[in-house]
């Protein structure tokens, strides 16, 4: 085999490196073939684990199939969809989910952005502070749910113990209708505010310094600088973080399962928790599939509307 010959470039004195085919490469495998060979395992996995089950669930959603009762699946048209959309139980869970999503994501956005803004103004210990704030996000939701369950216990929990030490009475955090939902929002906020903070911090770091310098020369106030420079530049990035969090919050299951089991009664049952009950208590697989598909559709439609708004914002 001969030595590689340096290729000439337009610039004298510069030598471009030449990439020759690997010595043992089969001539029959084209670049396209290689690409297919490398991507097909992942594609097959995706088809088997995501696309096929999704299509299968779509098919089941039009049937009366039950995974445990067996027997053939009878086609019942849009029966499952009609039952879900007209059910008062579903409307109640949808309202609970909506309150939860707005409450949790709203609180997380305000807190996350505030913390990011304060951290971005520090010159010392920024890295350490950021790392510390990120810890809750790295924990499993089940672990978070369990230790908050202990902390919020009305009799033995540390939260009520602290309230007691300052002369306040016991609060039934997880067993009263209003406080149970608030507790869920607080715990979710504790865990996921760092996510918003992280993205906001990235946005704040990307704001060009010269804009602030120019504003300083014009003797602009702190509030004016925040309102006209910081917020407009960070806003689009923040909205993407809100989108991710809203989708996640819409699917909330684990915290509800651990903290309240949907109680008291069904007052903290979210849509996902309800789907779980339909699927695994009643084993009404067809109905549960339709319920799941409807939830996916709601997320897709709302995300599309949101992305359009984001695009408009960018164009503006």
């Amino acid at each position, binding site marked *: 085999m001969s030595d590689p010959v340096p290729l000439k470039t337009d610039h004298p004195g510069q030598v471009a490196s030449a990439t020759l085919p690997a010595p043992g490469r089969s001539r029959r495998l084209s670049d396209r073939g290689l690409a297919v060979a490398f991507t097909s395992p992942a594609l097959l996995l995706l088809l088997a684990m995501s696309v096929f089950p999704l299509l299968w669930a779509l098919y089941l959603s039009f049937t009366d199939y039950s995974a445990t009762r067996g027997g053939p699946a009878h086609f019942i048209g849009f029966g499952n969809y009609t039952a879900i959309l007209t059910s008062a139980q579903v409307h109640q869970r949808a309202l609970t989910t909506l309150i939860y999503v707005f409450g949790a994501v709203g609180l997380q956005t305000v807190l996350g952005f505030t913390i990011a803004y304060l951290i971005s103004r520090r010159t010392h210990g920024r890295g350490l502070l950021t790392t510390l704030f990120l810890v809750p996000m790295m924990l499993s939701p089940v672990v978070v749910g369990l230790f908050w369950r202990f902390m919020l216990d*009305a009799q033995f929990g540390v939260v009520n113990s602290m309230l007691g030490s300052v002369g306040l009475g016991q609060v*039934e955090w997880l*067993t009263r209708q209003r406080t149970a939902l608030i507790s869920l929002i607080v715990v979710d906020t504790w865990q996921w505010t760092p996510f918003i903070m992280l993205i906001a911090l990235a946005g704040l770091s990307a704001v060009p310094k010269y804009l602030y310098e120019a504003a300083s020369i014009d003797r602009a106030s702190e509030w004016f600088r925040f309102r006209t420079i910081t917020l407009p530049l960070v806003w689009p990035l923040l909205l993407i973080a809100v989108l991710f969090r809203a989708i996640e919050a819409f699917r909330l299951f684990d915290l509800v399962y651990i903290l309240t*089991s949907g*109680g008291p*009664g069904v007052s903290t049952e979210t849509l996902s928790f*309800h789907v779980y009950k339909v699927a695994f*208590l009643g084993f009404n697989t067809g*109905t549960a599939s339709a319920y799941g598909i409807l939830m996916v559709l709601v997320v897709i439609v709302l995300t599309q509307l949101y992305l359009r708004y984001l695009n408009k914002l960018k164009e503006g």
Partner: protein
Amino acid sequence: MLLVATTAAACGDGQDDGTKVSAPKAPATIPELTKDPQTLSFIWFDWPPAHALEAFANAEYKKERPNATIKVNTVPNANWHDAMFTQFAARKTDFDIAILDSQHIGEAVTNGSILDLTDFVKNNIEVSAYNPYLLAAYGQFPQAETGKRDENASLYGLPLLGDTWTMIYRKDLIGDKPPQTWDEMISVAERCQADNPGVSGLAFHQANGSDAAAVTYNTVNGVYGGNLWDAKNRKIDGVLNDTAGQEAMDVLVNKMKPLTAKGSGNWFIDEVNAAVAQGKACIAFNWIAASGGLLDPKQSTLGTTRKQILDKLGFATLPSQKTNLVPLGGMGMHVSAYSSKANQAEALNFMKWFERADVQKKWAAAGGVPSRTDALESPEFLNAGPFNQVYTDSVPRMRDMWNVPEYARLVNIENTNVNAALNGAKKPKDALDDIAKEQQGVLDSSSRKGGGGL
């Protein structure tokens, strides 16, 4: 998980031929057992009897079958039903013996998930050695009438662990003699709470998971003369919420709940035990099989020795009122229809061994609650725990819930509504009427064509 289960069901060689699936029959005699190393797997929820069973079976069964190892797989109580039935749905189980609550039998039988043991029991089990209702409760389907056994009905399981509620009371606070009627129990608890600041009058199951709050209501319902349903006509609405049912709900929410600790609206077995062990309750109700830990000085603030604890704690059968009914707890052993033939044979051999008179007494001595009458009346059992006499005395008083395929949905409706009433999210009467109406809807829709509903 649902998708995996449905896909597996769809792709499996199942018996989905459009006809109603019935449970396959177990052989009448035990097939030849393998001499190779064999692991017999159980599935149960995580509580002391599960660990006791594994230790007991590995110590004793190995003497008969040295090549067999017993593994009791456990899941959290709240996942117990799902863990078993999602595997049944996939027509493939990683357990050979499912330990089912009596109320799960209907669902498992109609789906063909467990073996019909009728012929096996006839040839291998001494049925006359049991209280007929205990044998029926843990194996018979369709469900037996309370207190009886239909000898023509099929059996799908055998008793593993008997259980019922015991009343746990503080002898040092209310005296040695336990209250005899439910009304007396409430007034004693009220007085005890008033006399002992920081100690609540009552502690009982109120959570909305598993069957916690439902069993509590059903117990009070039974004591006050109510009925859960008219099994013959499959009628709940108008039966559960009749006058007796309303009175029971009123007693539970308006008389008993105010005597419980603040925030106890999500308490189940462990929380009630913790309250008793920490001296925070005058009277408590819990399952006997879960009460052993109360006598452990390491877990209790009531004394540094078992004797000191027993000087303060008393165990008694439930007080009666209009009737003397108590809840039937405990579980039976059921052979998975999807287990291999060799493992099914081993499972049948284990069950035959376990139901022997001598083994039942050893099980009693190891901390289990047997079901054979001779074992229940044996000194091995009665001396093993201070609450064991309570169980023996309670056997003729037991009543079960509904053993129908729709059980999981029925109990969820009751749990959530009773929990709502106990925690002020619903008025007691509304909660009871909602239970009756929704449960009736589930029973009525089960025979209707369609998607099964929500």
